[in-house]
């Protein structure tokens, strides 16, 4: 098969879907790799490196899409730039798709009978961990978020007892102990900070403590709220309120907060209200990793660093793109693992019984195969 690697078009995207070192594993299996000229430049992989690794450099975007059977991409094809329509009828696409927010792209894929696999929809099961870009990119985001916080903070992280007095360690609070949160804990810990972490799931306490951080307890809401009608909403409001209380009690002692709470396909929960920001020490820093989905902090502005109530709030967007070399390396490994899994048969036939193949597929033969995406797009219209 001919695998095409187009240049990313989204502003600020520095990653590339395939790096030179991952080309040999593909060509060894008889595949051919075509790379748009300059595709890896922003991630420090020049065209020559791709050529040396056995890829063919293609001069223009159009000819790349024309020549390739299957496209590897990082960002979803941008409908306003006409990207989805570049992919030829019946061809295959693998990359991020964010289908809930890219209805136009999904429609084009349907019309052109494109078989599209979304990196976000790979089932999060043990054997698919090697393909899980949500994990690998969150790892990078968690790491980078701490460095950004350290950079903005007017303090140093570690404890130092010197002739010029004792420097107390910075107190870092991590909200949400998912992959990004855990990596943030580990990074802050390595920089010498005193780290605590909050997560509503009591089960992750052990994971937090395994990295040497303190787990912040939260009082779980009483059960009787659940009995009345429409309890789900009521419960979640109360739940959120309890979460905010637990966090608010901690905030006055904190120098840097990294927030990582995301809900798949929904707006991020507000964990830090404006009132809570007011209670924080002047000069403290919030790095909001959920900025793109509305933010965990009420005052977050996506893509911007703002100072409000004397607190620096970083609305972090696409942090992996700030570490393009390793982010591309991990992404490329993930996508090649997925590709190898999808096309493991001799004749490159897809196995529609396989959990990963079915789970990751969004469109195929002019149909939306993913129920969740189908529901969202037909109900919301958007």
């Amino acid at each position: 098969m001919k695998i095409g690697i187009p240049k990313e078009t989204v502003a600020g995207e520095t990653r590339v879907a395939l790096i030179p070192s991952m080309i040999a594993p593909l060509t060894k299996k008889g595949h051919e790799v075509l790379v748009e000229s300059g595709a890896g430049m922003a991630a420090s992989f020049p065209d020559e490196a791709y050529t040396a690794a056995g890829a063919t450099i293609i001069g223009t975007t159009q000819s790349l899409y024309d020549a390739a059977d299957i496209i590897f991409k990082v960002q979803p094809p941008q409908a306003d730039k006409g990207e989805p329509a570049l992919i030829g009828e019946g061809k295959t696409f693998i990359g991020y798709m964010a289908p809930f927010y890219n209805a136009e792209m999904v429609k084009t894929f349907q019309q052109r009978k494109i078989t599209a696999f979304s990196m976000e929809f790979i089932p999060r099961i043990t054997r698919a961990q090697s393909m899980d870009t949500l994990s690998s990119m969150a790892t990078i985001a968690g790491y980078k978020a701490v460095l950004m916080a350290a950079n903005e903070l007017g303090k140093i992280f570690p404890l130092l007892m010197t002739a010029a007095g004792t420097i107390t360690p910075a107190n870092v609070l991590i909200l949400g102990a998912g992959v990004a949160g855990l990596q943030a804990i580990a990074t802050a810990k390595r920089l010498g900070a005193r780290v605590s972490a909050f997560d509503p799931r009591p089960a992750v306490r052990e994971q937090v403590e395994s990295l040497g951080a303190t787990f912040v307890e939260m009082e779980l809401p009483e059960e009787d709220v659940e009995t009345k009608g429409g309890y789900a909403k009521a419960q979640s409001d109360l739940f959120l309120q309890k979460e905010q209380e637990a966090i608010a009690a901690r905030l006055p002692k904190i120098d840097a907060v990294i927030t990582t709470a995301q809900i798949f396909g929904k707006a991020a929960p507000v964990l830090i209200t404006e009132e809570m920001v007011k209670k924080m020490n002047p000069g403290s820093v919030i790095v909001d990793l959920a900025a793109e989905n509305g933010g965990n902090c009420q005052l977050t502005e996506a893509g911007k660093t703002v100072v409000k109530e004397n607190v620096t709030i970083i609305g972090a967007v696409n942090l992996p793109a700030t570490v393009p070399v390793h982010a591309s390396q991990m992404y490329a490994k993930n996508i090649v693992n997925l590709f190898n899994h999808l096309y493991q048969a001799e004749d490159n036939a897809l196995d529609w019984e396989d959990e990963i193949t079915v789970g990751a597929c969004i469109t195929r033969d002019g149909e939306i195969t993913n129920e969740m995406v189908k529901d969202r797009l037909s109900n919301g219209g958007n």
Partner: protein
Amino acid sequence: MTMEIITRIVYLVAAVFFILGLKNLSSPKTARRGNLFAMLGMLIAVVMTLFDRNIISFEYIIVGLIVGGAIGAVAAKKVQMTSMPQMVALFNGFGGIASTLVAFAELYQAHGDVAVHANLTVSLSLLIGTVTFTGSLIAYAKLQGIMRGAPIVLPLHQILNTLLLIASVVLIVLAIMYPGEYLLWAIIIVGVAAIFGITFVIPIGGADMPVVISLLNSYSGVAAAMTGFVLGNSVLIIAGALVGASGLILTNIMCVAMNRSLANVLFGAVGTDGGATTSGEKETRTVTNYTPVDAAIMMEQAQSVIIVPGYGLAVAQAQHVLQEMAQILMDRGVKVRYAIHPVAGRMPGHMNVLMAEANVSYDLLLEMDAINDDFQDTDVALVIGANDVVNPAARYKKDSPLYGMPILNVDQARTVMIVKRSLGAGFAGEANELFFDDKTMMIFGDAKKVVTDLVKTLKEE
């Protein structure tokens, strides 16, 4: 009078040597010395007994010593290391029959004209000695392959055993009440005991034989102690009691190690003819439980060790002490490396964070693809708090959530040691057959505590 005092003192010395011997036998490190002490004690006791006034004829004794000694020496020399259990079983049996014969001789010599308490001890000696003898012979036959290893259960087996036991008690009471018919009682007791010894051991499977041998060993001690009472020989009473008690303790330790109760071993009739059954359900499989001391001894003999860390290591915060262990081994010339599975832990790079904290050199950390081919040339694979990443089900079990995930080939190492909190399944919920493998040593406990104990043992030298 002085002779008797000397005799007693020398017997006391012998007994002290026995105790020292047992004490030293409790650790494989000192076991050789323990054997030596016990031998010395036995020599002292035998020599003293020869000087004792009860000796009638030295000719018989010398002939006996030469014949018995020669058989023992030749047998011990010729026996294969793997056949040691049946050899021990056989020797136990000889101990038992010796007690029976001595008791019988004593009874015959005295024409039944003995006191009540002596009559009791003679009867017990006959009973226990004979049970030990026939039981040991069955154990020997099963282990040697003369008899089928699988449990043989007769109809109403438990009831039969109970009846035999009751019959033995009744016979002993009768023997005490009617000492005139001493010869008849003795013969019947021996007969009942012989049957009981057989029915007692045949329903127990070959895999459980070591426990039975240990128990029979304890019986032979008790029989010897009874004979000691019969003869009025204090050192025999002491030695017999020591063997009886230590055998019982050992039996218990073995049962705990197999996660079984003694009752389950003796009456369960579930032990198979050695090894695991293929048709067996998970619940019926048993694992072998080892201690950190066992692990340390294994480590000392290894030339190459691969450590496989997992989430359990992180939870226990055992990375520092683990590195201390690795350092000790490396200082002794053992090749130590860490194998890091890409999904070990609960976040990407979890193990790297831990290892960096413990100052493990990056050169010692190898990713899966780089080290997987080395397991087959490795003496010990030490898995600490990892489970799914070494589960062989990932290779072939199609309905498993792990199927298709590449795993570390720890099962190819010569010995696999797994330190784990429990037998539970891993994150993916798949049971791990590796735990039940013959070459796997399971060490249950908190990773930090286990490794700390391991380091402690390694440092003792």
